[in-house]
């Protein structure tokens, strides 16, 4: 028994990749691994977000905490995050923003002098440090000229507050490295989800007993576009198996039509289709790679600690179990 290895070699096949979007297949592993990856991407991949705000002047309609909260939620480009230090671990500074290892300083200084409402957006956040620039998302793509209204929506930046004539907002903000576990603002993923890959087997013999009308009805009973009817052969074909939402709608429909077993759908327990969307702080692909890195680090930590008996305190029975024996 001892020699039997259960080790598997998961593979990844990328289907679609964009800066903020990634779709891939993860095969030869199980749900625990897939979910661990999902959880790490959401909660443990570090990013940079504004964490400390010093307000010098705020005569806007929103109060200080409100603005600070809004600033915190602005995604910042976080390629540097993996190399930075958590400000609590940083030995070089006391976390006041002057330290290049753990913090990035921004300033914002806007005053409305015209009669028109002035929109303060994430583009008004200016990083003090030009050496390792960290910007609000979309800062580099912003239009050079023109007001808020003229710019296309995706280039306007994220609205922080609106100012009327005479109102002013002046502040200093310090961005730090953090993880989504501590606060959702550090979570790099907007959405991450996976599903088991479905395998669809149509009982062709049974299907042939249906009239074209019935086939149509059956195909339409699925809320998502899974099946279609071949215009030539009048046969039901699978168009998009992954569109299946595991809602059993078509199976119920088949039962209702008196044809149970018309279709057999099995979900493959070792194969997952992942969809990741990024907030823009990290590239979707980087996010995933970082996640693997972090997961590895976590596993290393477990492995290292299980080799030392002192860590029995930490792991209790689990530690002894991991070392193979009691």
């Amino acid at each position, binding site marked *: 028994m001892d020699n039997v290895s259960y080790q598997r070699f998961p593979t990844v096949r990328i289907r679609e990749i964009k800066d903020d979007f990634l779709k891939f297949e993860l095969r030869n592993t199980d749900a625990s691994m897939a*979910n661990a990856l999902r959880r790490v991407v959401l909660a443990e991949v570090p990013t940079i977000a504004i964490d400390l705000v010093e307000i010098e002047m705020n005569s806007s309609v929103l*109060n200080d*905490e409100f603005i600070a909260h809004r600033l915190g939620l602005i995604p910042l480009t976080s390629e540097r995050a993996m190399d930075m230090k958590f400000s609590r671990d940083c030995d070089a500074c006391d976390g006041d923003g002057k330290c290049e290892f753990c913090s990035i300083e921004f300033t914002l200084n806007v005053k409305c002098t015209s009669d028109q409402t002035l929109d303060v957006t994430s583009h008004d956040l200016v990083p003090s440090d030009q050496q390792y620039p960290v910007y609000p998302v979309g800062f580099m793509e912003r239009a050079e000229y023109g007001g808020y209204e003229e710019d296309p929506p995706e280039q306007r930046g994220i609205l922080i507050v609106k100012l009327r004539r005479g109102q002013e907002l002046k502040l200093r903000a310090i961005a730090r490295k953090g993880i989504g576990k501590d606060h*959702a603002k550090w979570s790099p993923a907007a959405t991450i989800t996976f599903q088991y890959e479905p395998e669809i087997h149509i009982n062709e013999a049974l299907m042939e007993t249906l009239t074209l009308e019935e086939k149509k009805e059956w195909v339409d009973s699925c*809320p998502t576009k899974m099946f279609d009817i071949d215009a030539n052969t009048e046969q039901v074909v699978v168009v998009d198996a992954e569109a299946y939402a595991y*809602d059993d709608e078509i199976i119920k429909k088949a039962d209702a039509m008196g044809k149970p077993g018309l279709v057999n759908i099995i979900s493959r327990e070792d194969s997952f289709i992942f969809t990741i969307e990024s907030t823009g702080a990290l590239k979707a692909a980087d996010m995933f790679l970082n996640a693997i890195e972090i997961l590895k680090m976590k596993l290393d930590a477990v492995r290292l600690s299980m080799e030392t008996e002192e860590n029995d305190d930490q792991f209790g029975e689990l530690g002894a179990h991991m070392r193979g024996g009691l």
Partner: protein
Amino acid sequence: MGLSKVEQRIKQKERVQELGAAAVARRLVKPHIDSFDYFVEHGLQQSALGIRPIELFQSATNCRLRIWIERPSISPPLKDDRDKTQFLDQRLRPLECRQSGITYKGQFSADICYQWNDQAVMRFSTSFGQVPVMVKSSICHLRGADRNKLIACKEEASEAGGYFICNGNERIIRMLLVTKRNHVVAIRRNSYKNRGPAYTDIACLIRCVRPDQSSVTVRVYYMQYGGATLAFSYRRQEFLIPVGIILKALSHTQDREIFELLSSIYDENNSGKRGAVGTQLVVQRAQIILEEVRRVGLFTRLQCLEYIGERFRAILEGVEDQPAAAVGERVIEDHIFVHLETSLDKFHLLIFMLQKLFAVADHTAAPDNVDAIQHQEILLPGHVLTMYAKDRMQDWLGKVRRVLAKELEDKPNEFDLQDVKKVQKLMDKVPSTSIGKRFEYLLNTGNLASKHSLELMQVGSCSESTGYTIVAERLNYLRYISHFRSVHRGAYFQSLRTTTVRKLLPESWGFLCPVHTPDGTPCGLLNHLTVSCEITSDMEANGVLRDYLSMRKEIVSVLSSYGMVSVSPGLAHCAPPSHVPVLLDGRVVGYVEASRIVSVVMGIRLLKVLRSSDIPADLEVAYVPCTFAGPYPGLFLSIGPARMVRPVKQLFGEQSVEMIGPLEQVYMDISCPDGIDNGWEDVSPTHMEISPMAMLSIVAGLTPWSDHNQSPRNMYQCQMGKQTMGFPAQTIQYRADNKLYRLQTPQTPLARTLRHTEYHMDEFPTGTNAIVAVLSYTGYDMEDAMIINKSSMERGLCHGQIYKTETIDLSRLNKKADGFNNKFARHTQLMYHSHAKFLDIDGLPYVGQRLKGDDPYCSVLNTMTGRAKVFKVKNSETAVVDYVAAVGTGPKEPLQKVTIRLRQERNPVIGDKFSSRHGQKGICSQLWPDIDMPFSHVTGMRPDIIINPHAFPSRMTIGMLLESMAAKGGALEGKFVDATPFKYNLSSSSDRDSVAREQKGGTLIDEYGDILRAHGFNYHGTEVMYSGVFGTELVCEIFIGVVYYQRLRHMVSDKFQVRSRGPVNPVTQQPVKGRSAGGGIRFGEMERDSLLAHGAAYLLHDRMHTCSDYHIGSVCSNCGSLIAPMAVSQAKAGHTHLLAVGAKRNKEVCRYCNSGKWIEKVAMPFAFRYLTSELAAMNVKLNLKVSDELRNT
């Protein structure tokens, strides 16, 4: 041309809707403003007219002095100019009052007129003090201000007023339900039997109201022997007079006519007919009544008047020297049927009342239910004030008379009544400005103190009646506006054990909302007007006082043209069932033949809505038909103020809209367009409801699909909607309310009723559209608990703030004996050095400063003692200084008053309360991070909130399920969803959706299911979800959708109570109670029982002893005394100081045994020690036996 008056009004209303929130709010508070305008512009004058002048006579100089009050008026509020500060703008604005905690009041002044012996009148304008002024009333500076001006005044853009500002608080006078004025009601009440021997439980009563709104209730009791007694109250005393005497005192007729009038309701030919109200007994009763008078020896009218006059001379004031007949006339004029002027009218009304009384006694007519809204009207704020003004002025004049009369009596020679100066000097003993103070007191406390009882039901037995005013809390807009629409039955009924008054009666349909009433003590007593309900006003739309006299004339002439027989002496005897009596505002105007009555009523209704006619549009035409032993028949017309009216559509004539009242509604055939024929078979309706929503109040009308919910859930929502954190005011920046709740990012609901748009609720939103999944996940959502997604919370879900305002007034501090030496300043001493971080040199905090528990936010320095009083933030609270205002002092004076507003962040934590709009409240029990929440595999969505499916089966809030699905569809389509209740029952609705649905034979679900399906979602709103913890598919599909969630104001941060050690009661050494005092929670008897039952003795000992008043006492085991052992300083006992060092300072010695060797230490509750001392004080000695026996065994 064909437009009726009401239709015009409705048109106006529509225009109003276009105008926006301001106009809508104005309509809702209209009864308040209108009635206050009436008070200021007409009521005051009326009440002055209603007060009889006082007369004094000095026989020495033969001088007769008359004093009376004329031309009372209230001026717009002005700034307090006592300090002679030269304000550029003298006007006092509401904002200033609110911010500086003062009262928005105007000068109340009147002319006091003196007349000596019919000479020329002398007038002196006198101040009666200052009276609080209603915001946006005709004497308010904000009257007529448009949006821009309001904003410039730093008021709400949709400010509608209707409240008073008293010491900075916004207070309103509650609307109360009272018996309908000038309307005869017959009732049975057991307490009437206690009036005396021979009294029965039957009586007829009428609440007569004078033009100055003061009222006198006249009752006619039925006696066992067949007679009747008339009663009225004066100064809380009831006076009973045999009705025959009054009848004869009212008119010159012979007994025969009285007899015939009384017995006219009996006709032997009619017996058994529908509406035959008289029986043979009536004839005998008429004889008894007349016989009664004859037996007293009264035959003529004069005799009767004198008889009355002699008996009332001692009771009435200022009639000592008048002849008896004049006094009798005065009694009739001032106390009997005061709404009528001529005694002939009074005579006929009394006849009518007797007829009704006898019919009820004979069971040929049913008694009326006084709790039903058809016999009620509303006591408006302005009318309360008018009454009170009269009462106060009368009281003042009475006091003046007494002072002058006493002076005349005491110093008949020195005092000269002709000397104006002397008279006025004496009058100063009765300060006139106290009247204003009384008004302020009324507004501040809601207590109405009056000698004359003002004839109100809520008076009860005590001399003060309470509950007239309430604070209009700005918790959120729903709560705020509800205050103005609430109608209370009176505080008196709250203590009543019977619950009949609380019943929801079908008569209230369309006037009072059946849904919107609170649970608990005020249930059924505190109701709310429906949105369509209006209150008739004393004034026309243009502010001119209604000319009731000409209106009545016009109505009578119209009726006559329809064939009404007017009442006149020697009239042919008309009575039901052949004729129906017609009463107009409590005056019998004539009789209409029963066969023609229906067409007469129809005719009046047609004229009523006709623009060109002079008949008012809100005339109530209540035709009570002839029935078998039903209510007493008659045609009751009323045009008076304070009636509730609401619009319905006529199904005859030009289909115009008519305003109907609660009395007539009961006898009308009104169909409701809810798709059901209400069981009409033989009757065809004459009127139709405009909308089935008309029966709901504003708050109830905002519940989406309330027609799909179990009814109590809608009631709960009405309560919770008013406790929701929302956006209370757009002027938060300028407000100084004690406490304001604010939701940081409120949203407009995706599923909303038409009312939501109509009443511009988007100006004051109260919740958040949350993604809600219904599943049982981890067990933390059991028993109405709910799980909130921590990450959503961190992204801003339901974030909120509380604003608290503290006012620090040096003049208040000054009262405490430390003189006028206080000033706002930071202390310079070293021990106060840490304050510099929080306070500026002027003792006030920095705006934006973050404060933790025990940090100072204000410092007041006493320049004399050099000590500083520091105001600190309460422990365990963190706050930010939001706003600091220096209040109301001129430039020269040092600062006397500041208001400091602190802002506390209140983001959701475990223990906070949330609710959907369907009475589904729950407590947040966990904040799970995103990763642990279940996720939908298609969209990757994690829910914001998880609630337990068990919340649904027993509560049956299908509306919530509908909302979840519909709003989900709406979110996918980017559209708001119309969630108006009863919409789908409307057969008349011809919009395409419903037609399409009808064709499909579908329901609401089908409509929204199809939308979901079209977007690739499950038809039933469910989704396949994966466990966030394990990554595996959840076994069943999860119902997930969008629900508008409200965050309620109940938060743990305000409620948690915990202590390990803390303050104790000095007497018993037990922990004190109360959260604010840092006390403990009582571990009571039942808790003790429970621990005993568990056998948890150690825990019990810990709770009740160790953690309570644990005490180690010294007992002398020799004498057994607990109080004799005393600590004796050893130094005293002869030792030197040096020896005492290191040694135990004190030694316990038993003073009784004079030795310390038997002293034992015993643990006991301190309360025991207290008991022994108390017993000792009563000469009871308590001996303790202290031994080691137990320990040794």
